C-alpha cells in the first residue's frame, strides 16, 4: 500500500543519460528550466519539446514514470491556467456571463501550462536517472566554491544523503508497523478526521522510536569509524568528467543557443 509513494524515484536502466556525471545533469536541468522562461514564442517551445523528447528517449525510462510526477501538480496547473485564462486583460475572444477569455489570456495560459509541465517532466528525468546519492555528490561538488564563504557544504550534503537514505527505510518501517497494527485490528481508513488522527498514534509512536533508534545507531557507527566532517576527506568514487560529459555540455550549449536565437526569429 505504502510502497506506491515514490520519493527517491530512481528508475534503473542502462542508458547514456544514466551514465552522465550528476553535475552535468544538475546543470542541464537548471539550464533547461531557465530556457523555458527565456523563450517567448512557440518555436522556442517546439525546440524545448524536441530536446526533452530526445533526452527521454535516450534515458530508456518509460514515459509513464514521467507522468507520475505530473499528478502532484495537476491542481496548481489548473489554478494557473484558469486564472490566466480569465484574468488577463486584452482583446476578448469568448465572453460568457461575466467571464471573458481574452486572446492574450489564452496565450499566456497555454504557455504557462507548457512551462510547468516541461519543468516537472524535465526535473523528473533527472531524479529518475540519477540515484539520490550521486545527486548529493554532484551538489556537493558544484557548491564547493561556497566553502570559501564558510558554507558547510560537506555537512549539508551529508545530511541530505542521510535523509534521502532514510526515506525508503522509514517507508518500509511504516509499512511494517502499519501491517502489524492492522493485524491487531487497527483501522487506519474509516472514521472522521479526529478518529483518523487518533488512529495514527499506534503507528507514529513506534515509528518515532525506531527513527531515533536508527539515528542513534548510525551516529554511533559513524563515530566508531572516526567520522570528523568534511576536512581532508577523500572519496572512494570521486566524480570525474569523461568524454560523454563534455559532449553533453556541448549539446547543452547548442540547445541554449538555439533557444535564445528562436526569440529573434519573429
Amino acid at each position, binding site marked *: 500500500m505504502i*510502497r506506491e509513494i515514490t520519493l527517491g524515484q530512481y*528508475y*534503473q*536502466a542502462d542508458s547514456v543519460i544514466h551514465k552522465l556525471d550528476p553535475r552535468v545533469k544538475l546543470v542541464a536541468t537548471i539550464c533547461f528550466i531557465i530556457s523555458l522562461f527565456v523563450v517567448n514564442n512557440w518555436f522556442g517551445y517546439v525546440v524545448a519539446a524536441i530536446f526533452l523528447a530526445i533526452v527521454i528517449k535516450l534515458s530508456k525510462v518509460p514515459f509513464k514514470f514521467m507522468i507520475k510526477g505530473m499528478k502532484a501538480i495537476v491542481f496548481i496547473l489548473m489554478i494557473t491556467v484558469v486564472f490566466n485564462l480569465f484574468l488577463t486583460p486584452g482583446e476578448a475572444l469568448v465572453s460568457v456571463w461575466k467571464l471573458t477569455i481574452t486572446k492574450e489570456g489564452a496565450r499566456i495560459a497555454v504557455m504557462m501550462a507548457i512551462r510547468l509541465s516541461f519543468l516537472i517532466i524535465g526535473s523528473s528525468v533527472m531524479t529518475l536517472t540519477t540515484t539520490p546519492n550521486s545527486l548529493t555528490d554532484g551538489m556537493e561538488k558544484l557548491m564547493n566554491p561556497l566553502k570559501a564563504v564558510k558554507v558547510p557544504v560537506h555537512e549539508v550534503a551529508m545530511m541530505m544523503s542521510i535523509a534521502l537514505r532514510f526515506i525508503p527505510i522509514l517507508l518500509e518501517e511504516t509499512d*511494517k*508497523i502499519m*501491517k*502489524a*497494527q*492492522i*493485524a*491487531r*485490528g*487497527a*483501522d487506519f481508513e474509516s472514521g472522521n478526521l479526529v478518529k483518523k488522527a487518533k488512529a495514527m*498514534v*499506534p503507528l507514529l*509512536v*513506534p515509528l518515532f*522510536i*525506531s527513527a531515533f533508534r536508527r539515528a542513534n545507531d548510525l551516529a554511533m557507527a559513524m563515530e566508531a569509524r572516526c567520522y570528523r566532517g568534511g576536512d581532508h576527506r577523500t572519496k572512494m568514487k570521486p566524480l570525474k568528467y569523461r568524454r560523454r560529459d563534455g559532449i553533453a555540455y556541448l549539446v547543452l550549449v547548442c540547445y541554449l543557443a538555439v533557444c535564445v536565437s528562436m526569440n529573434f526569429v519573429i
Partner: protein
Amino acid sequence: MSLILDHVNYIYGDDTALAVHALKDVNLVIPDGQFIGLIGHTGSGKSTLVQHLNGLIKPTSGSIYFNGEDIHASDYDKKKLRSKVGLVFQYPEHQLFEIDVFTDVCFGPKNLGLSKQETELRAYAALKQVGLEDEYFYQSPFDLSGGQKRRVAIAGVLAMKPDILVLDEPTAGLDPKGRDEILDQIAKLKEETGITVILVSHSMEDVAKYVERIIVMNKGSVLYDDVPKEVFKHYKELEQVGLAAPQVTYIMQALREKGLPVATDVTTIEEAKQEILKGIKL
C-alpha cells in the same frame, strides 16, 4: 475451521522493471490444531506467504479460503479474519506503543469492539499465557528487556483469541535461553488451547523439536510439505537450498556409516539418545 491456499501467486512491483515473483503457485491446506513449521532461506517468500494468511496482502492470482469462504470476496469481514488468524510479525516488540504493558495488550481486543471487562480479562489471560509476571503489567513496555518485550507483543496478538497463531521468526535476535523460553512457551500454549500454530523460521533446529509438519519454501514455491522425519531425509537437497537438517540427523547418519545400527530419521536429541543406547546394547 481450516485455511486453504489455492494456486496463490504474488508478484512485488508488478508493473516495474524490478518485478519479483515472490510466491509461485502455492497450494496448502492448513487444518485445525496442527503445529506447523514454515521453513525457508532468507528471501524464500515465507514472510510474504504469512501475510497472505490474514489478508494483509492480496495474491496477484489465486484464492485463499478460511472456513470455506473466500477472504478476498468483497463482502468478507477482514477485521474478523484478522482476529481469527493472529499474525505476530518479526521483531514484534517494535510495534509496542502504549504507556504500559497492560494497555498495550488491550489494544487488539479493544479494536474488536469487546466490552471493557472482556478486554481486560483477555489481556490478563494472554499475559499469563506468555508467562509474564504481574509486577511488569503497569510498567512502560519500553523499560522491559528484549525477551519480555517480545512476550508482551505476542500477548497482544493472543489477546484476540485467534484460532490460528502465526509467528514470523519469533526467536530472531534472542539469546539461546530466550529462544528456548519463547519456543517452550509457544509449545505449552499450543498444548493448552489446541489452536493451530504456524512457526516461521530459517532454522530446522528450532522447529524440529516441536512441530508435527514442516513446510519448506524455496524461491517462492513449496519444496517439501511433510512430517519432519520425511523432510529431513532430504537433508542433502535441503543443504542445496541453504538450509540444513538438525545436527542429530548428521550425527546419526555418521554413526550409521561407521557401522552402528541406528535409525537415521530421528529429529530430537531425546530420540537420538534412545536410538544410540539401543544400538550399543545390540
